[in-house]
């Protein structure tokens, strides 16, 4: 393998962390997957970031988060009245 070939494969940490997003969305090409895995082998920072990223990925759950959003009962009733009036129901 010559040096220029390796250089072409080399990713910066900035590029690697973008590819991590695409990996999590399962849209990474084979070539990029190889590049990324190689980078993660040699870069302890990105490897650590990757671990945290997968953890955050598992935590984010919109359905749970939205259910935790407090809605004030009085305001909710006012809102319902307002719509009912607007639509002449």
């Amino acid at each position, binding site marked *: 393998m010559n040096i220029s070939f390796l250089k072409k494969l080399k990713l910066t940490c900035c590029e690697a962390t973008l590819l991590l997003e695409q990996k999590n969305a399962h849209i990474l090409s084979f070539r990029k997957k190889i590049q990324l895995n190689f980078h993660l082998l040699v870069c302890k920072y990105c490897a650590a970031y990757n671990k*945290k990223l997968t953890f*955050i990925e598992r935590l984010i759950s919109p359905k749970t988060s939205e259910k935790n959003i407090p*809605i004030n009962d009085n305001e909710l009733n006012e*809102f319902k009245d307002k719509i009912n009036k607007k639509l002449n*129901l």
Partner: protein
Amino acid sequence: MNKNEIFRQWIRDYSKPLLQRATYLLSNKEDAEDLVQEVLIAAYNSFENFKEDSKPKTWLMGILKNKVADYYRSKYKTEPNISLDHFFDASGNWKTKDVINDWNISENETALLNNNSFNQTLEKCIDELPQKWGILVKLYYLDEKKAPEVSQELNINTTNLWKILQRSRMQLRTCLETKWFSVN
């Protein structure tokens, strides 16, 4: 039941989940109320399009998603300029090295998932994202991570979508690092 009776029932049953989703997506209570009002009015006016075998809540949530996309497109017309300078130097290396700090995830995961104050910190961190990224990140997760769909809905190119996701996640990681893991 006639149309008006059905609608009264829908308003009674679905106002709350609609308001919760809109508030979650927009991180802005007033805008969320206006938006849900628009959703219900639009639903009333296009009631003929509602197929009786589908679920009303799903139908209304679909209209809500379209309205959120309209809101986003009209508010953020220009393609965003996303800078990662805060995190990486000119050669693309990490600027700060605190990413290496161990979170002990494998040992702590279950405990953290069930820890209310940790979950609150996480939600706060998500909420601190600027709205123009926050809406996108949240829609991305609601749409089960279908990037092409989100970029089409919000009229944003996919390259920028990935950059926003990357930038937002960088910020989330830093936020959790400083607000939770370095203090607990």
